[in-house]
Structure formats: C-alpha cells, structure tokens
C-alpha cells in the first residue's frame, strides 16, 4: 500500500527550506513537479482519448433462427423444451417473469424475453402453449386471449472473435437489475460516490482489516482505480504502475461523471474464462453463468456475480461451487449490514442455489460447421475488422434442434454400422436445408461435429456418382414428344469411343444388364447402362446444361463418364442442385444468413429470399415422381423399413467407383438433406450410397419427422391409365392398369375399356392399400 502517499504528491505543498541544502531539495522537487505535471498531461491525453472514443471492440454475434410459435405449427413439446433449456429459461412452478417457464402436462407457460429483430421489436410477453401430438394446438396469452404468432429470442450460437478473444455484451447502466449497483459499491468501494478517484479512507480501512486479521471483504483500490487498471494498463505489478494508476484514476474522475465511470466498469470487469475466450462485463457474465440477460437477475445472482469480481477463477461457480456460495452469502451479509437489502430479502436469497447453467460453453465452438458457412458468407460483404470489432448481430437460419438431430443421426448410424470393417476411417458430412425457403438449417463438416477443422460439407469435392442421374432424366423429360416416364430404354451393355480414343464401357452395379426397362425404372434402380444410353441420346452437353440450370456453377468437361457422376461436387453444391428439384424447378441461392443488425439494433443488411424459375413445373413433377419411386421400389426403398409408408419422400443414392463415396440426397416437402460418407484419403469404404449415407439420412428423417412431399399437380400434367406391362394406354377397369403422370399431350392414347368391374381388381386394390399401410 505504498502508493497511498504518491498520488497526492502534486497537491502536497513543498516543504519550506530552512537550510541551504534544503534549497537544493526544493529546486529538485520543483523539477520533479514539472516532470510529474508533464507526465500528468501525457496521461490525461491517454485517459481522454481511449475513454471518449469507442471503448471496446465487440465480436459479431451469430444467432440461430428464432423459434416461431403459432397454432397449427409442427413442433413437439420435447423439442420446444430443448429450445427453452438452451435459451436458459428457468423452470418454475408458475411462470413469473421474463425467462421463466412452467410445464404442466401438455401446456407450457412462459414469459418470453423480447428481442430486437430486423423486422422490429418482439415484445416480452407471457405466453401459454398447448401441445397436441407433435403440433402446437393453441397459443394464447396467459389470460386466455388468443395470440396469432410469437417469436422466442434466438439462441446465440457463436461469435466471430478477434485474436485476443475478449468478448462482452455491452450494457447500459439503466439496464442493470435491481441491487447490482448498490451491491457493487457496497462490496468494492463504499466511498465511490464521494471520492475523487482514490480513497485514502478505504485504503486505511483495507490496511486495518488486513492487519487485524479480519476477513477481507474490501480491496484498497477504488472502482475507478480497478477500471483504470483493466482498461489502460497491463497487469504488471510495480510501484510506478500503481502511481500511474492512481493519477489516471483521478484524471478520469476529473473528466467524467460517476455514472459514466460505473457503466464503463460494468462492461470492462473480467469475470471468467471460457476456453480461449475471456468473459468481460456483467452483460456477458450473466449470459455465461445463468444463460439469462443481465436485467433478469435476482438478488442472489447479483450477489454471486459481484462476489466473483474479487477472484473470477477462485470463485468460479462451476469449478468451485462451495467457495462461490460462501462468497455470495458473505456479500449478502454485507448488503444487510449496509442496509441495501432487508434481512428477509437476504435470508430468502441465501436459500437459493447458485443456479448457474450446467452448459459450460456459450456455444463458441459447438456448431463449427455452420459458423464456418456464416463466416464465409459474411466475408463476402464485410471486412474482418467489421466482423470482429463492431458488435454486429448476425441472424441466421440455423435450427439448433435439427442440428442436434443431424449430429445424433451420424453418431447413431456409425455406432450401428461399427461392425463393418473399415468404417472407423470413414468421415461424414451433411447439409440440411428447407427446400421451400432455400435456407441452410444444419450442417455437419466432420464426423466429430464439434470439431472445427476441414469442413467437408463445404470443401470436400467428391465424385457424386448416381446423384447426377436426375439431371440426365430431367433433360429427357423436358422433351415430352420424345420421352415420358414410360418410354422404353435399353439396358444392354455398349461401349463408346471418346474423342481421345479411349473406350468407355459402363457397367451396372450388379454387372448385369436388365433388358428393356421403363424410363423411370432406369432412375429408380439406378441402372448405369440405360442411364448412359439415355444421356448419350439427349447429349452430354445438354445434361451439363441441365446441371447448371439446377444451380451447379462448377464447370465439367462433356465426357460420357460425366453421365454416371465422374464429376466431383461438394455436399453443399449437391444440396443446391437437389433444392431446385425439390422446389418445383425454382432455383434459390443457398442462404445461411437472413439479416444483419448493428450493435445498436439498427437494420444494416438483409439477405433477401430470391428465386428463379429454371424449369417447367411439369417436368419437375415427373422427375419428382420418378424420384419417389426410387424410395418406393428402387435403391432407396430401405427407408420404408424405418419410416411410415405415408411419408412420401424423393431422393437418390450415389456411389462412386469402388465405394469410395457413399452419397444420399433426398427431400420431403419441407426438409432436404444431403449426406456424404467417405475417407479423406479417398480410400475404399464398406458403404454404398444405400448402405451408408442413406442410413444416416433415414435416421435423420425419422428424428426430424418432416411433412410428406406433395407437389401440386401442374395444369399441363395429366394422370393416364396405362398397362403396367406394356405402358400402353389402358382403362381404369382393366387388370394391371396403373396411373402415371404425363405432360399433357404425351400420354399414350387411352385404351379400350375392359368392361364392367372386375372383381379381381377390387381385391388387388385392397391388397395394395394394405401393402402400403403395413
């Protein structure tokens, strides 16, 4: 405590000279004073410059999609509670304030917190959600009046951190909860409102308390000094530093009022470490320890946070809960002594548990795959400094519930298939989107989803194998005068000589040819021979054009082998391609970000929904129909071992040579997922598209429980009765008649009626219906 005298030096009148050598001393001290004054001027410049400008750089914050609530919404109660837990809602018996939720059977009462969105402010409000099955059956205010739509605040899923990894959530002094300021002053600096930067009284008291061996509840430094220390100085411990600190504290007090200094303190204070990230300020501390906004904190929580200031690591409530609790209660005692809180309030607060969230990390590395996508999209529009310093708020389409399900699907499937030799070396990537909005909802870049490294979903360019086939068939189906779903294709082997003289001789996966097949069967069973023949007939360049129209920007050479997927694509590119197929032929640029707000909540940028019609809905209707048959009867049919038959899905398997890549891409009405499995060293895997990637996909769809695919039939599509063996026009009453969709005018001429109702057909209908339902 040597510094006690030093700060006052400039104000102390110099001693009078009585002896000649004292005159020298006087002169010397005058020189010293001048030097000190010069130093003070220098410090003053520093103090003012840093304090008046932008005080902190704040990393951009990335938010998940806000969960929307409305009557009729498909959402299970379990998923809803998962979301509430992640948002740090307190489970209470009666929901009694923002951030509280009470569960009662199928009904959940909660008080939302409100949030500033791009579209405007979502007010905090009490809400009652009643569930029925996997749907929201009713949404009302707690007084019973109906609510049409409510948004929860979005989950913070990460930030874009600068190198020093200092993070904070800025707060204004009027946003603090009751007791915080009083508690802080009572515990850290009782004379805060009366001193001018340094407090001899509190230093004396600290010395006295320390030497008399009592419990140390007060340090000698004022809040102002603590702020100066953290804000301007290094952690070096020396006399000169203490001197500088005291001078700066006084200079700060000279220029700024107490509330400004206190507000800066609230945001600067260090309260903990989260891996690489330093947690600063009570705003972030509140989120970090309680998962709640600062303004919601109750007395016992305030006491814990203020108590931690003395030793953030020593009193860390997650690592040292006993110490933290003891310290908190000590702080509560001080509040009672000082008259800040009544004895009853303190007694009640002491009964409360610490109440810190068990989640250790504030999502700063939890979803690296998706955050990677967000960062890349942001870097197209912002400089690095904007992202790490300006406190931007990034609103994304990320769905944490779907992400958890996707991760679980990968883990479960690998566990289930672990018996297969070589499966340990197999990596995984997955992209989940909503085809109706073009938004990316989940992403896995590595089998270890929390591992931030090579993002295979964005960067692994791998041969897509049969995933290309829908493009081949779509090219054909766009020429309805030449091709329909029931056109005949030859599946006999053949060979072609390329321009370079090389002979290309494709083979079927089962190394057999299948004679003559219907066009749709070539796709459903993924026959290479018939597909290659069809592709050569429509022209490889035309197939590549179709691919480009589907949204694939990558360029491929027009080799015949392209028809069977020799070209490489990334999982996200595959998702873009299939999205156009899923969304009625409308292409949407893949989006992960919806909007960006400034740190103050002002709208900055929007990433609008854009669509472009690339295909006639009729040909898309036909290709979807064929892709549904992939699932019903073709290479994807194993899904219905697990999923209900009522769930219409469309998709395609893909396997590259020697099973080096196992792909599946498919969609329901509202959910599209692309799965890739393979080895980083491009070695052989034990999986085909159907035995590997499709298993992950199926597991995911079972967990996600999507809506069945249901594309409205375009006007220029007709359903015609055809003979299931010949493909010729038939009549509804004829045996073996099936209905197939055709682009109007391309359907076979209607066949003659077979007269009367055949009893046999009635029977088959029932058998058939039963067949699907079982």
């Amino acid at each position, binding site marked *: 405590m040597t510094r006690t005298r030093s700060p006052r030096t400039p104000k102390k009148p110099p001693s009078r000279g009585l002896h000649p050598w004292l005159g020298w001393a006087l002169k010397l001290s005058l020189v010293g004073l001048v030097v000190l004054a010069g130093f003070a001027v220098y410090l003053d410049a520093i103090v003012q410059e840093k304090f008046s400008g932008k005080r902190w750089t704040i990393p951009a914050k990335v938010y998940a999609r806000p969960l*929307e609530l409305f009557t009729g919404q498909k959402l299970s109660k379990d998923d809803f509670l998962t979301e509430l837990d992640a948002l740090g809602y307190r489970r209470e018996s009666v929901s009694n304030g923002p951030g509280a939720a009470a569960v009662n059977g199928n009904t959940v009462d909660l008080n939302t917190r409100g949030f500033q969105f791009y579209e405007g402010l979502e007010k905090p409000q009490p809400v009652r959600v009643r569930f029925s099955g996997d749907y929201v059956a009713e949404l009302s205010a707690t007084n019973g009046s109906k609510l049409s739509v409510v948004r929860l605040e979005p989950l913070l899923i990460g930030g874009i951190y600068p190198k020093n990894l200092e993070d904070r959530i800025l707060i204004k002094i009027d946003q603090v909860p009751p007791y915080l300021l009083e508690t802080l002053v009572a515990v850290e600096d009782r004379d805060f409102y009366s001193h001018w930067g340094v407090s001899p009284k509190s230093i004396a008291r600290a010395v006295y308390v320390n030497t008399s061996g009592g419990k140390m509840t007060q340090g000698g430094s004022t809040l102002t000094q603590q702020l100066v220390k953290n804000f301007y100085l290094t952690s070096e411990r020396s006399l000169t530093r203490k001197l500088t600190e005291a001078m700066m504290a006084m200079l700060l007090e000279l220029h700024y009022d107490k509330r400004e200094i206190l507000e800066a303190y609230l945001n600067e204070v260090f309260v903990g470490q989260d891996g690489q990230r330093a947690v600063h300020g009570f705003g972030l501390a509140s989120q970090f320890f309680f998962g709640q906004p600062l303004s919601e904190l109750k007395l016992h929580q305030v006491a814990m946070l203020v108590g931690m200031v003395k030793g953030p690591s020593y009193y860390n409530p997650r690592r040292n809960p006993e110490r933290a609790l003891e310290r908190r209660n000590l702080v509560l005692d001080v509040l009672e002594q000082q008259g800040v809180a009544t004895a009853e309030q303190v007694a009640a607060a002491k009964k409360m548990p610490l109440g810190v969230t068990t989640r250790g990390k504030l999502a700063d590395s939890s979803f690296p795959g998706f955050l990677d996508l967000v960062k890349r999209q942001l870097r197209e529009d912002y400089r690095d400094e904007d992202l790490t310093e300006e406190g931007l708020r990034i609103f994304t389409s990320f769905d944490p519930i779907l992400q958890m399900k996707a991760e679980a699907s990968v883990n479960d499937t690998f566990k289930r298939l672990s018996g297969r030799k070589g499966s340990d070396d197999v990596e995984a990537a997955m992209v989940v989107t909503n085809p109706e909005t073009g938004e990316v909802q989940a992403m896995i870049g590595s089998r270890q989803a929390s591992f931030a490294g090579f993002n295979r979903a964005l960067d692994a360019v791998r041969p897509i194998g049969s995933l290309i086939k829908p493009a081949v068939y779509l090219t054909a189906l766009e020429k309805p005068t030449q091709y329909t779903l029931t056109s005949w294709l030859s599946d006999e082997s053949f060979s072609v000589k390329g321009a370079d003289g090389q002979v290309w001789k494709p083979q079927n996966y089962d190394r057999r040819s299948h004679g003559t097949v219907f066009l749709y069967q070539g796709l459903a069973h993924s026959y290479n021979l018939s597909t290659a023949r069809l592709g050569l007939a429509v022209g490889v360049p035309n197939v590549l054009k179709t691919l480009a129209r589907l949204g694939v920007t990558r360029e491929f050479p027009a080799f015949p082998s392209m028809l069977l997927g020799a070209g490489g694509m990334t999982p996200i590119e595959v998702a873009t391609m299939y999205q156009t197929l899923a969304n*009625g032929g409308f292409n949407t640029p893949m989006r992960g970000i919806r909007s960006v707000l400034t740190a103050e909540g002002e709208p900055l940028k929007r990433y609008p929904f854009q669509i472009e019609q690339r295909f006639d809905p009729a040909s898309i209707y036909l290709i979807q129909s064929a892709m549904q048959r992939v699932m019903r009867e073709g290479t994807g049919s194993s899904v219905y071992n697990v999923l209900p038959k009522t769930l219409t899905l469309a998709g395609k398997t893909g396997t590259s040579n020697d099973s080096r890549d196992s792909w599946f891409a498919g969609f329901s009405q509202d959910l599209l997922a692309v799965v890739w499995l393979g080895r980083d060293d491009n070695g052989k895997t034990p999986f085909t598209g159907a035995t590997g990637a499709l298993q992950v996909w199926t597991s995911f769809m079972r967990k996600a429980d999507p809506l069945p695919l249901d594309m409205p039939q375009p006007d220029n599509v007709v359903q015609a009765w055809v003979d299931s063996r010949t493909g010729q026009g038939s009549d509804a009453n004829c045996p073996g008649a099936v209905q197939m969709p055709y682009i*109007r005018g391309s359907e076979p001429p209607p066949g003659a009626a077979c007269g009367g109702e055949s009893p046999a057909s009635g029977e088959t209908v029932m058998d058939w219906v039963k067949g699907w339902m079982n």
Partner: protein
Amino acid sequence: MNKWLIPAVAAVALLSGCSTVQRGSIPVEDSGTAVSNSERISANGGFRKSTVKRPAQAQSQTQAIPQGDTGVVVMVPGGGAVASAPISTSPITPGPITPGPIDTSPVQSAPINQGSYSMPSTPSGIPSANAGGLSADEQLDGPVLALLTTAQQQQASGDLNGASSSLERAQRVAPREPQVLYRLAQVRMAQGDAAQAEQFARRGLTFANGRPDLQASLWELIAQAREKQGDSAGATLARQKAKVSL
C-alpha cells in the same frame, strides 16, 4: 370496406368447411384445369418465344379456355385419392410398373381442431388496400394474417425492407400460401426489383390452382413486372391470362 369483408370471409370459411390451408397441404382436389399455365413454361427462366413452340404447350393452349368453376376433379397423386388405383403389385423389379406413389398427406397433417383459430377478428383486411385483386375469397391462418398485416403497415410507412422481411417470415410459416408470394412480389415491385417480382408471382401461380381471383391478380402483377423490364409483348400475354383467370 372491412365491414363486408368479415361476413364474406365467414361465409367462405363456412362453405369451405373451415378447411384452413395447412402448412404443407395445399387444397388439392379442385379444378385445376381452369387456367393454362403454359405461359410459365420455359426452358431457362426466360419466357416468351421458347414457350410457344413447345408441343405440350400447343396442347394446353387449347385448354386455356376456362371450363367453368364446376371443373373436372383432377386426380392428384398427392390428393389422397387412395382407393382409386387398382393395381397388381409386382415384386419383379424391372418388370411392370409398380403402382403409383401414394401420398397421404392428410394422414400426417395436424390433429388440431382447425375451427379454433378460424378467422382472427383483427379486421384489418390486409388484402383490401393495395392488394389489388385480392378479396375475401381467400382464407388465411392466424399467423399468416398477422404477419401480412404487419408487412402492410411497414410498407405503408415506407419501410419496404421491413415489409419484405416480415413477408419472408410469413413465407416460412406458410411456404405455399400464394397470397404471401403475391405480397412478396408486390413489395419487390415497390422496391424496384421487377425481375424478382415476376418470379415470386410465378411461384404464387404454381400454388394458386382453383383461385381465379388470385390468379388474375398474379398475372396482372406479372404483366406490370414485364412492362417494367421492357417486355411489352410478354406483358400483353400476361394481361390476357389475367382476363382468362377472372
């Protein structure tokens, strides 16, 4: 304005058996042949010439005359018309056609009593004001109605980005509601993006079967968007479609 809207909406609600449009289940069993959509067929996003050449179009052109509202019931595979397809199942794979895929969307849809949120009493008829041809023949969900109302207010106050954002929110809630796409197209138009306005209107048309008023409005919007883009021939074509729809 709003006064007559409420009973009209109520009547429609009654008539349609309160069959609120569910997310993911667009009305399916209606007379989809009333309008030819051949217009929007295009190979590469462009409209005009290429469309007319195609044989399939020529066919459907002849169908373009409205056939009255009684319309044929079109068999939609997704329509849950389950029992009508007599078929023999055949296990032999490359053999005969296996029975068509059945979609049973009704099975999956919400088990909620839909009457409970029939028509919110919020009288602000979004469609009425600048929504052109939209009228009471459309019934909207509570959340969609609320969001369209918000968007309308934002647009009225000049906040087109906010309106756009609210409409995209509505689109996420009800991705296949053509009225939402129609409003999105309108706002894009107001923002000066005629190309996107046309695209959204075209997307709206793919979900607007059996809703002639809405189809007419969508075609009219497409006509305006094409005019803005300097395609007067395309605009004229779209105007004809708008008339046919009505």
